[in-house]
């Protein structure tokens, strides 16, 4: 009874490369030729690790048409992302579906502020690349709780006119949050024409509130709860400009000034207690693996 796994997009999804970027953030290069061929900045995939797995959305960071691979950068925070972090080169992922969602509209704005929070920086990277190619001058702000969660600083720096780092605890860069730096940037002579912000919901909310004061167009990427990712379940519904939208097919990016952030923040808490149950099981499983020295 292997029909479910037999031809996932016509291929087996093998992990080709794995690189640990920080204690919890890992970069994976995965075989997914059809996705690689069509993906554009802003697209995501839904992955399911195995037969008992859940489907989770992950933004595509990069792709290689010739090799037939996509790159994902994932922070191990939930059951599935932790289980993924235990996989190694040569292991497979049961399902990879995509590219999903609308690609990011890449326009010329003159100067653009690209703001990445935590692992959101990974999602922001391909968009920043495209914005830079479109002739925009890039000002990047990367924020995280602490130094070890700062990723892609070099890569983002290479395509930015200026790059700023903020950490909540001051362990690296400016002590504070991204909006402290953004306020300076918006009041400077940089002439920021648009802001692209990807990170935790409270961060995107704060950025949007700030840019509203300055009347600067702001695009945010909403990481809503999804099951299928194709417009079928409606679980990812968000309120934008007073209307119900599905993040998977109408987004995932929306005008930050129109998003009801408080609503999606509450909705994303729906399964917090059950996620804890899942996580604990995953952790005890991981502990067992380590104790037994299992190196599959």
């Amino acid at each position: 009874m292997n029909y479910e796994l037999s031809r996932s997009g016509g291929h087996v999804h093998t992990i080709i490369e794995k690189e640990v970027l920080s204690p919890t953030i890992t970069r994976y290069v995965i075989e997914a030729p059809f996705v690689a061929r069509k993906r554009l900045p802003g697209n995501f995939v839904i992955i399911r690790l195995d037969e008992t797995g859940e489907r989770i959305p992950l933004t595509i960071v990069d792709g290689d048409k010739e090799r037939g691979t996509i790159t994902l950068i994932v922070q191990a925070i939930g059951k599935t992302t932790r289980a993924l972090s235990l996989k190694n080169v040569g292991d497979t992922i049961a399902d990879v579906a995509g590219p999903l969602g609308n690609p990011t509209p890449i326009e010329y704005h003159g100067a653009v502020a690209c703001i990445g929070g935590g692992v959101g920086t990974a999602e922001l990277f391909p968009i920043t690349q495209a914005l830079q190619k479109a002739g925009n001058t890039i000002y990047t702000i990367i924020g995280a709780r602490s130094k070890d969660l700062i990723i892609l600083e070099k890569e983002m720096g290479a395509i930015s006119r200026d790059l700023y780092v903020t950490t909540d605890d001051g362990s690296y860069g400016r002590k504070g949050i991204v909006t402290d730096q953004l306020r300076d940037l918006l009041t400077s002579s940089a002439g920021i024409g648009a802001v692209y912000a990807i990170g935790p919901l409270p961060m995107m909310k704060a950025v949007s509130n700030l840019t509203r004061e300055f009347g600067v167009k702001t695009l945010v990427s909403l990481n809503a709860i999804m099951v299928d990712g194709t417009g079928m379940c409606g679980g990812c519904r968000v309120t934008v400009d007073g209307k119900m939208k599905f993040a998977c097919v109408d987004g995932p990016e929306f005008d930050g000034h129109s998003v009801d952030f408080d609503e999606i923040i509450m909705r994303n808490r729906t399964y917090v207690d059950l996620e804890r149950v899942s996580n604990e099981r995953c952790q005890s499983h991981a502990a067992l693996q380590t104790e037994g020295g299992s190196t599959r």
Partner: protein
Amino acid sequence: MSVTNTMKPSERMKIPRQSSIEQDPVERSRNFREVSLGLDEARAMVESTRCLECKNPVCIEGCPVNIDIRSFIQLVMDRDYAGAVRKIREANYLPAICGRVCPQESQCEAVCTMGKKHPSVAIGKLERFVADYETENNLFTPPVVPERRDEKVAIVGSGPAGLTCAAELAKMGYGVTMFEALHAVGGVLRYGIPEFRLPRTILDQEVERIKALGVEIYTNFLIGRTATIDELFDDWGFSAVFLGTGAGTPTFMGIPGESLSGVYSANEFLTRVNLMKAYKFPDFDTPIKAGRRVAVIGGGNTAMDAVRTSRRLGAEKAYLVYRRSREEMPARVEEVHHAEEEGIEFLLLTNPTRILATDTKWVKGLECQKMELGEPDESGRRRPVPIKGSEFILDVETVIEAIGQKPNPIIQATTPGLDVGKRGTVVTNDALATSREGIFAGGDLARGGATVILAMRDGKVAAQSIHEYISGKPVNKEQVRAEAV
């Protein structure tokens, strides 16, 4: 040789209609095993002798795929069960599914001559019996497929329309490739219809039988995103495409409170349980918040599936809230009956107006108003009218909306020249040809929300049209089907 039924019609009419063996309602409302266990051989034999063997077998006309019902029942009477199921499969490749989910009471059994004065012959239960008998006794042999033709056909969507179209074309010798967006095959049969109505072993087996015809299946492949329809023609070399992507996009009522935690579309609720097996959490990773007190809004089969599922997930109070009366309910009579047996409470002529919230934005209750029936509306059903001052609050923590689905718009949006109707359906003519040459469509994508068997019928009709199209015969381009409203 055939056994002749020597009983006179008057004697046959005295035989009571044989009923299925069913799981006890209290027990089954706590498990996901199949509700109906079907007829055993003895009951099937008795039931087959009730057939009046009409000279003009109107039942065949009543069947959307025109199964030769009289002949297959005759074969049951002859105890040639494998022959009976082969006879069915000539017209319908998926008898184990149809025998379970078809609304026979409004099709073949509705016109059965016996049914004029007595309960009609249990055609659906006989169909299921022979299909199950074939499986249990390992009697299935795949039909002989003729020499493979050069032309390939792409089937988009692996639900009942796609599965049937794929089987029919493969039987004609075409190379068939089916594309499914999800990780598992079956469409609504997989994510929508619960296990207690259609066991997954049955569905898996029917999918295997389609594969046995040489049909190739790509899962995790969302047409419109992973590849477009134009790419299927230009890069993949398909000669024709059948679209059977169903009506998978949920609609919401638009009442206040729909964004609260604890509010689900029936699609999401059922997908979490059926496709993702959330009822086995945490052994399976997908969570669900099923709730102890649940209100399901709607009166169709999806609403019945959702409310009966919530009961199985432990709901102490499971309400079905429907704004019209019982007569107007679109759900199958059998499903309504089963739901009642399982302790579902029906709140009819009741219209939800608002979902109330707790401080942490969870569902706290459902505000409803009582309705009365007024003059008939455009659907011919009497329009429900609110009774002033009748508002009340239903104490629930979960609200599931099952008020209908519409087609997913991704293919329409990514296929230039494909005409789309008012409700997002793809416009077709009687031959199920769309406005784009070589593209055919059927099932809920074209109908906007119908039954499994009508989707299967469309799959058959489209397969024939595709065959004619590829063979160079003209496909009826006139008579564009009026938009189903």
